[in-house]
């Protein structure tokens, strides 16, 4: 549960996403986890301020199950994604309090058919250790252009 372990965890999450191993990716999330993409600069409140996403594990499961659905027409053809991560910056690594936090600058590319879209920003991970393994309590994605009008963003940053 050292700093390197936090960084390795962040890389592993991105690897699972890029490999489209959705079930393995969901397995990294704590049952009470949230996945948050704010719509405001340095946003504080995910509930009474607007967000692009603020989802619990149930809703993430819906997304994952949908991706392989027979009638999920926006996934015909399928999307693919790629994460290019800077070395995670360890914000907190405290085994006593059980608080582990990292902030990672990223370039995210999502592609489908002939189109390719690129997004950049910072991913913040808040982890807890359970039985010697990390689980994600909160993943927060701050895009540099959170307020831009995007087309469909179908996968996970």
């Amino acid at each position: 549960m050292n700093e390197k372990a936090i960084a390795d965890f962040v890389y592993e999450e991105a690897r699972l996403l890029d490999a489209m191993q959705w079930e393995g990716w969901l397995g990294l999330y704590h049952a009470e986890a949230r996945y948050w993409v704010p719509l405001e600069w340095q946003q504080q409140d995910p509930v009474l301020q607007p967000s692009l996403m603020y989802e619990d594990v149930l809703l993430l499961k819906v997304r994952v199950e949908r991706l392989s659905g027979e009638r999920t027409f926006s996934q015909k053809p399928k999307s693919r994604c790629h994460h290019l991560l800077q070395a995670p910056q360890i914000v907190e690594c405290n085994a006593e309090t059980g608080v582990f936090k990292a902030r990672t600058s990223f370039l995210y590319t999502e592609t489908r058919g002939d189109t390719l879209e690129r997004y950049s920003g910072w991913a913040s991970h808040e982890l807890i250790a359970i039985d010697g393994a990390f689980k994600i309590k909160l993943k927060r994605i701050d895009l540099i252009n959170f307020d831009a009008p995007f087309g469909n963003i179908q996968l996970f940053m």
Partner: protein
Amino acid sequence: MGAYRNNIDAVRALVRDSEVHRDVYIDAEVFDLEMEHLFPNSWVYIGHASQLAKPGDFITATIGRQPVLATRHSDGSVHVLFNRCPHKGVKIASEACGNTGKFFRCPYHAWSFKTDGSLLAIPLKKGYESTGFEESPASIGLTPVKHVKIYRDFIFAKLNDGGLSFEDYFGESLSTIDNMVDRSPEGKLVVQAAPIRYMHTCNWKMLVENQTDTCHPMVAHESSAGTAVKVWTREKGDSTDTPMAVQLYAPFMSPYEFYEKSGIRIWPNGHGHTGVSNSIHSDYSQIPGYFDKMVATYGEARAKEILGETRHNTIYFPNIMVKGPVQILRHFIPIAVDKTLVESWVFRLVGAPDMLYERALMYNRFINAPTSIVGHDDLEMYERAQEGLRSNGNQWVNLQRLYEDGEKSDVTEVINGTSERQMRNQFHAWVKFMTQDMTERAEAAE
């Protein structure tokens, strides 16, 4: 040479009783004519007065392609002005919103204007002496948009002088805005948040039509709403409370019979709404404390009447949709013939519990966002339509569902909820406001 400019008959011929020609969606010249005629002839939504809370506050908008701004003047009045310096044409306000202080100042030559648009000062004023400057339109300042109406804080404007008054244009359709405002225990709405913005690579009318299309949700949204219901059924265990999220998703899977019975009401000039007697918004859980507050303001009978009105989507022709029960206004802003910007705004009901605002924000990101799986279903269909319409197999789009011979236009009626009558209603209005200021040229039909 295009086929439609200066050819009123060709424009009229694009719309038949129960079908429209594909060019209304894919022809760039038709789009140009919409910008030049349809939007300037219509009452177009600019914004909400709560976005202009203090003197000096401004918002920017476009009517068709023309940039405008709305400002709050020091005396409290709201002004809608062309967003153009009268000197060299530079846009005065470049941001979506802001506060300009006591005056606007052009960044190019420092001409400055009061917040009602009137000219305040010009540097080197002497240079204009004995030039006849006071006779020039530039001496007035920022040109006002003449036809402006603020209805219960909703700001609308019309560019052209001709055509209908605000009241004649909207008529009874304003009852949807009334109901949304009345849902506040203080009779007041505020915009507190930036809109969710979403770029659609399709024609703007596809989105407008989709708002009253009740035969697509159970088909197109099986992937999102259907999966949400399936996953919840599997995962809920002993839970008896359906989460707010599932309550928002599940009604999209309602069967055809549900929509047939819930009805559509059409109004003159292209306005209309789904969910007359029942809607996908009817069965949300009560928000603790809300009804009591409504009763305290309105009395029990009136409170029940207000909350019993659960209209689904109301189209205000040409390009906004209002959803009263979740306090959302979607603005479909045409950018190009195949590109539409959607701004989805959430209103907060002043005096209502936070949870109502929470639900409205949640609905907005679940259904209307570029990160919404429901939104993904819809955009995929619009994009496929935008491409498919190029096929020469059939050049007409069919809008015939529940069409009856001798169907009247510009009337108020309540009809079967799966009818395409509201789309026909919109296209009747489309022809009307497209051609209202076009010159008749009988010979051009040949």
